[in-house]
């Protein structure tokens, strides 16, 4: 509701501006949106690269038992069994 009101109010204000100012405003908003998207993509690319390095670091930690995947399965099963009263503390 508030977002709609703010949007309508902003639109009303923009319509009062002359056309060159409206055009400048639109161009600026488009530029800011593009910059935000570029920044998000750059951050994403950096995160993807760092994730690859992190995988290598986990690999160097050597084989673990249980593996992280097995650990997740065990934790979930343990919790379910505990909640369902199949095991006790």
């Amino acid at each position, binding site marked *: 509701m508030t977002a709609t009101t703010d949007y309508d109010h902003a639109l009303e204000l923009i319509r009062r501006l002359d056309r060159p100012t409206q055009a400048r405003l639109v161009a600026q908003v488009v530029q800011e949106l593009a910059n935000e998207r570029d920044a998000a993509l750059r951050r994403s690319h950096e995160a993807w690269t760092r994730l690859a390095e992190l*995988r290598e670091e986990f690999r160097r930690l050597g084989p673990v038992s249980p593996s992280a995947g097995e650990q997740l399965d065990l934790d979930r099963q343990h919790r379910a069994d505990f909640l369902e009263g199949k095991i006790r503390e």
Partner: protein
Amino acid sequence: MYTLDANIFVRDASPGDPEHAVCHALIAQLYQRSTMIVLSNLVLAEITGALSRSFRDPIRARLAVDLLRDLHTIQLIPLDNTLAQAAAELTADRALRGADAVYVAVARRHGCTLVSLDREQRERAAPVVRVLTPDAALAELEGGTR
């Protein structure tokens, strides 16, 4: 769009796991195609918990989810009252486990295909959402059908 269970991300982060290759290939395909992965924020704690407990490395476990959050393909959904209620109904009706149902609820709400290694989760979710194994999802992507 896809919803991936935490078991995919955890295997992706564990190069020694037998399922690592397919889980990594799937996440890489989705990233390269900029295909959205919609997840409940519950996934963050499940990933860090499994990585920290297995590798005994809390710092890298935290880093792993911080980096995942920054990927442009990841959309995190808050586990709010509506989602919790939907998950509760799924646990009752489909006999899903609690956390499993949260993934199903997210997939249903956002029209996503649920990808999981957990057969029970897939079987019980199948009447509610489209479900795939990581292998099947990868084959589908590489086949260009989605």
